[in-house]
């Protein structure tokens, strides 16, 4: 399933060219299978497989041990790390033949009856966010701890340097590994421990219907440590299973027993305790479809479950945490039905080309196992999707004309083995390459070829905010500074490439895939496939990182088309290269700005112009063009202001949403100029910011008066002691070092939470079930950031019942109302507010039912709801109440949409109801002779209004900082050149310094419990703080990002030459 195979130029010749055209040779072109016997997690297994099949494939597809993740298939990300003979290796680089007779340990083998000390430490520290890299990290760290139970930080980093994580910023991982020894000392409780409902789950199973693989059978019972049915390859056998019963639908009465908890509980050696019960009851248990409930893990791990009414502000272990450390979590590629057709996407090797197909039928019919080829002409609906309907312009499959490298042109669907062995070098397509332009400077020239005929000048759209008279203000300013900054394409580089499967459930198309926006997926998929929206059901899996790119549909319409047309399930996991070339990026920006101050150092005016390379299709380009002008002032009072943002089409990768929607780029422009202004004024750089920052009562550049909740001053002031300490340390270091210089830098952020002046409601449904659970339809997709936990905490306190009573249902569009997209730092604020309202409404309903006052306290005891008021107590036997179709006896639903006002032609209005604020201090050291930067520390003060879950807030901050570090120092995506994770560099565990988080809580009157969003805020100040610190250390400002050693060195040399 590789785009690479779609490039004729890259095709390798067949070794047996003479026979490769015969159909017999075609299926047999692969390698003869051999029986390979080895041990996995102490269990002897035997598979029949081609000897060069990757061990990762053997584990996942043949043995269905899906805890081992595949992130790159090239040894670049380490997600597939397993132990062979006790040594960590990348399973994607190990031929099956090499494990014959060997012992293999996967993440499923770590929890030997109870969580390992390391797994417990990961949960305790919040070291897993999305969880996709967690198995690899756990396995690599297990090898380290086996030989060194008390590793130093450096030893930990050395051992884990080969595993990339994009969410956490690594600091909590380091802490967990170094702390694991402490958990090892704690005795396990054993099964005698009470089992209070832990309120934890993985919510991603709702409605998902899957076939039980043959591997684990009923004979895998207590004491039976041999896999009963070492079926050679369930996937290769996909043609033969009877497709009766539910027909093509991958269905079964039981849930997916291959999910690792069942291995952990039933198969992998711990079946002799607690009757072989797994820690995690699977869906279909008494909890009802779509719910999972964890028993208390045996390890003495304090889940930190708060008492009733104390959930907000507590840091319970994330409610969906346990499957993330056991390997049990199911991401987009982890639940493919055994009989699914595999789908291969043929993609453009050119930035710009027209194309025509040859005889597709002849090509596919000559290949046994290939079921069909689909092109744009097969698309039944409107072949045009996009996240912002008026700008929708992207075909699911190109119609004779491709506008960027990696654009999909055709789908090949076939049996899994046939697709795996398919070389599409001879795919019948004729390309006619056309001239392309990849840079803004080429695309917006007069006469430049248009990417879209209806968009003159290749201008997608522009946004403007104007206030006062900026020219007059700058002319009258005591000082002005002017600068220009250019940034690069930045790739999201989540470790989970897009993956999912689709199947028909009657006349409803079901798409089971990773996503950030299920309802948007539903609507775009329905549109492309010509289905009514109610005939498309999106079942989100766990999502292994998103950061904005998984807001847009990727494979949903593609696998949907195959399922719709063939009637068979269709499955697809993007390769790393395919993910990188075909999905969205952060917009490259070319920005100019001038800022003026009066003699006292107060900002008087600012003019900003930013051009954003939006690539071939619209995606979120309009959002960037509009968000940037609103935010380019930074959180500073700027009375006279003009900012224009333009989104310009090129034939580059599609630029879309990436944590901050252009604001991180614009902030680099503004914050680096602020340092220059402070220098001109001979003011302290931090105090200059304190002087100018927005305060309660300030008006923003859109004329919005901020009456309260403005926390930027508090953030900057919180940095003062750190700034003084860091400055003194840098000065002392620099006094005695010539070739290395230290510098410190500061930068701020503000960011409006939710859509810009557009509705973005969230709806939350919550109820009490007849069996005494609080059932929360948690529609805010958790891509690792923690909404499963945070939304529940908010709802719990609004309702007045303890967190542990909650059971979550997922954002499945068939069962859960729309809580909007996970984007724009809106979930804690908007969905949180809806959860608060729904929780209060449910409470009201119960109180009314019981005819008690608002002072009453609620309590759930089994199936009894206790309502206490003073000395009186009313007992409600829930089992006696009439239940709704989904089993709820009390039910509330609430919707919240932030109150905003439209922006007028000058960008004046109230674009956001809530803003969050932050400021970060970067300390670093520059090697002047090599241009390398060593980060020493980041101190981050963020005003989150109210930290609903402080540990999760810290995790967001550390992770955002890591992405800011990458953007500042190393990340530059170049189409055709960096389509992998060794040429495209993201920070490793050795690249993120210690982070000190200062939580500032200036409550916002609009947010739930005062909370503000923070997901994007946390990334914004990092890059400018680093650039300012580099300038402080070296005297040079890097104006072209990333600030690679090469660029820093060149700037230093240039400065020396000027002397």
């Amino acid at each position, binding site marked *: 399933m590789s785009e690479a195979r779609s490039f004729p130029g890259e095709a390798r010749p067949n070794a047996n060219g003479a026979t490769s055209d015969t159909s017999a040779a075609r299926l047999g*072109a692969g390698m003869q299978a051999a029986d390979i016997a080895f041990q996995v997690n102490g269990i002897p297994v035997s598979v029949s497989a081609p000897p060069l099949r990757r061990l990762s494939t053997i584990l996942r597809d043949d043995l269905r041990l899906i805890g081992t993740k595949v992130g790159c298939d090239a040894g670049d990300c380490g997600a597939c790390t397993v132990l062979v003979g006790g040594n960590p290796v990348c399973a994607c680089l190990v031929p099956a033949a090499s494990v014959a007779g060997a012992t293999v340990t996967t993440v499923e083998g770590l929890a030997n009856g109870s969580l390992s000390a390391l797994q417990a430490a990961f949960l305790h520290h919040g070291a897993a966010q999305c969880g996709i890299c967690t198995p690899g990290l756990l396995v690599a760290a297990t090898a380290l701890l086996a030989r060194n139970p008390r590793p130093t930080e450096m030893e930990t980093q050395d051992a884990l340097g080969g595993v990339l994580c994009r969410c956490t910023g690594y600091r909590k991982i380091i802490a967990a590994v170094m702390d694991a020894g402490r958990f090892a000392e704690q005795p396990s409780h054993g099964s005698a421990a009470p089992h209070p409902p832990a309120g934890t789950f993985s919510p991603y199973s709702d409605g998902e219907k899957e076939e039980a693989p043959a591997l684990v059978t009923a004979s895998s019972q207590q004491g039976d440590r041999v896999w009963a049915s070492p079926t050679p390859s369930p996937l290769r056998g996909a043609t033969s299973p009877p497709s009766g019963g539910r027909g093509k639908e991958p269905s079964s009465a039981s849930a997916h027993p291959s999910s690792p908890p069942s291995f952990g509980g039933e198969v992998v050696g711990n079946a002799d305790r607690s009757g072989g019960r797994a820690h995690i009851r699977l869906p279909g248990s008494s909890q009802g479809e779509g719910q999972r409930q964890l028993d208390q893990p045996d390890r003495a791990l304090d889940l930190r479950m708060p008492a009733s009414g104390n959930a907000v502000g507590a840091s319970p272990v994330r409610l969906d945490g346990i499957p993330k450390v056991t390997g049990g979590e199911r991401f987009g590629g982890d639940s493919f039905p055994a009989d699914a057709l595999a789908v291969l996407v043929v993609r453009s090797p050119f930035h710009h080309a027209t194309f025509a197909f040859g005889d597709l039928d002849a090509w596919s019919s000559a290949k046994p196992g290939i079921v069909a080829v689909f092109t744009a002409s097969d698309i039944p609906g409107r072949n045009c999707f996009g996240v912002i309907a008026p700008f929708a312009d992207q075909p699911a499959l190109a119609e004779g004309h491709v506008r960027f490298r990696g654009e999909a042109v055709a789908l090949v669907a076939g049996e899994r083995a046939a697709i795996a062995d398919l070389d599409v070098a001879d795919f019948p397509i004729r390309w006619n390459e056309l001239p392309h332009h990849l840079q803004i400077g080429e695309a917006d020239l007069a006469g430049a070829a248009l990417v879209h005929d209806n968009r003159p000048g290749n201008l997608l759209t522009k946004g403007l905010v104007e206030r006062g008279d900026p020219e007059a203000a700058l002319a009258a300013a005591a000082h002005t500074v002017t600068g220009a900054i250019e940034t690069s394409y930045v790739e999201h580089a989540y470790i989970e490439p897009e993956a999912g499967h689709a199947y028909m459930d009657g006349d409803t198309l079901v798409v089971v895939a990773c996503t950030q926006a299920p309802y948007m997926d539903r609507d775009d998929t329905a549109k492309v496939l010509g289905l009514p929206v109610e005939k498309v059901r999106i079942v989100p899996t766990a999502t292994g990182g998103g950061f904005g790119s998984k807001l847009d549909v990727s494979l949903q319409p593609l696998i949907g088309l195959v399922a719709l047309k063939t009637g068979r399930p269709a499955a697809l996991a993007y390769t790393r290269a395919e993910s990188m070339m075909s999905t969205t990026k952060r917009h490259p920006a070319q920005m100019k700005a001038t800022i003026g101050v009066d003699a006292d150092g107060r900002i008087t005016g600012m003019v900003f112009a930013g051009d954003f390379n939006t690539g071939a299709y619209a995606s979120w380009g309009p959002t960037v063009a509009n968000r940037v002008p609103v935010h380019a002032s930074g959180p500073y009072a700027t009375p006279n202001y003009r900012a224009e943002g333009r989104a310009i089409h090129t034939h580059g990768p599609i630029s879309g949403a990436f944590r901050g929607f252009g604001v991180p780029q614009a902030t680099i422009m503004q914050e680096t100029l602020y340092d220059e202004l402070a220098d001109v004024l001979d003011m302290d750089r931090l105090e200059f910011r304190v002087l100018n920052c927005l305060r309660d009562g300030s008006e923003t550049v859109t004329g919005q008066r901020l009456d309260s909740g403005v926390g930027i001053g508090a953030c900057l002031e919180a940095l003062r002691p750190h700034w003084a300490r860091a400055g003194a340390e840098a000065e002392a270091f620099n006094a005695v070092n010539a070739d290395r210089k230290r510098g410190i830098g500061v930068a701020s952020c503000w960011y409006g939470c939710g859509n810009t002046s557009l509705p973005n409601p969230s709806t939350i449904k919550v109820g009490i079930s007849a069996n005494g659970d609080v059932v929360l339809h948690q529609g805010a997709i958790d891509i690792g950031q923690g909404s499963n936990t945070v939304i529940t905490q908010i709802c719990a306190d609004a309702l007045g019942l303890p967190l542990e009573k909650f059971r979550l249902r997922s954002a499945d569009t068939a069962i859960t109302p729309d809580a909007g997209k996970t984007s724009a730092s809106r979930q804690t604020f908007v969905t949180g507010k809806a959860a608060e309202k729904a929780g209060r409404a449910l409470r009201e309903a119960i109180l009314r039912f019981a005819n008690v006052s608002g002072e009453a306290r609620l309590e759930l005891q089994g199936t009894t709801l206790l309502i206490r008021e003073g000395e009186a107590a009313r007992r409600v036997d829930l089992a006696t109440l009439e239940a709704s179709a989904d089993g709820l006896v009390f039910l509330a639903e609430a919707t919240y949409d932030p109150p905003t006002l439209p922006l007028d032609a000058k960008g004046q209005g109230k674009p956001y109801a809530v803003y969050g604020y932050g400021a970060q201090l970067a300390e670093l050291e520059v090697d002047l002779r090599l241009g390398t930067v060593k980060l020493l520390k980041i101190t981050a003060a963020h005003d989150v209004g109210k930290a609903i879950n402080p540990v999760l807030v810290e995790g967001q901050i550390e992770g955002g900082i890591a992405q800011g570090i990458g953007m500042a120092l*190393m990340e530059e995506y170049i189409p055709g050149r960096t389509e992998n994770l060794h040429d495209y560099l993201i920070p490793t565990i050795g690249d993120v310094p210690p982070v000190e988080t200062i939580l500032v809580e200036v409550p916002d009157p609009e947010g739930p419990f005062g909370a503000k969003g923070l997901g994007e805020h946390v990334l914004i100040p990092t890059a400018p703080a680093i650039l300012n610190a580099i300038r402080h250390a070296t005297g040079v400002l890097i104006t072209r990002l990333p600030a690679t050693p090469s660029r820093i060195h060149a700037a230093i040399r240039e400065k020396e030459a000027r002397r």
Partner: protein
Amino acid sequence: MIRYAKPTTVDEALALLREGPWRILAGGTDVYPAQGSRPFRDDIIDINGLAELDGIGETETHWLIGARTSWTSLVRHPLPAAFDVVKQAGREVGSAQIQNVGTIAGNLCNASPAADGVPALLALDADVELRSAVTTRRLPLREFVLGVRRTALRPDEMVTAIRVPKGACRGASAFLKLGARRYLVISIAMVAARLVVERGVVVEAAVAVGSCSAVATRLPAVEGALHGREADASLVDAVMAAPMDELSPIADVRGSAGYRRDAARELVARAVRAAAGGGRVAA
């Protein structure tokens, strides 16, 4: 149907190689990434069954590194201090996961300009033992790696060992690798240096640079400038003044040509200083 063979003796492997073209699979850390998700279409000899090629041994005259020896095995094997340069390089190859299976010979055969093993082994005057069913030949490493992804390996041959003459196993050595991040680095530039200092004077110097030319190269002029010089701070001056005409760096996403040239010189100075002082310095 393509062929797959996993011989258990070198002679068996060589007999197969004589029959026709095969692709050799060892650690797999380059083969699989190059393959991507395309199906294999070459006949493959999997040499992971050749126990005789795994490990490090010695003769009167040479240290022998078997072709299947992994980086981890080499790093853990007790060896003279002169080998530090190779061990330090080994610790920088990809990640621990890569080092555990990736082989030193494979690193040479892959012939990447950024191969970590090449400059380090050049600094040890290593040669490469190539065997076919009919002959055994030994090529100095610099004659084995011919260009980008190009070696002197003939279709009927395989590398069976890397040999380091004991005469070159003298002195102290250091390896420095420069990248834009801490781990999983493909180098912008890297330097290996080995110095033999007797009575305070450099009597032997071996300096090699990688990632700054199609094939990593020794720097004879730098070595000449160091030879006979007192092992003090003046070594750095000598490096800074010496010609490095062997380098022909390219500009790419990792750095400009000019940067590579400057950085290589700086790294050489630091590596020489480290080798002279016996300590490690940061790149």
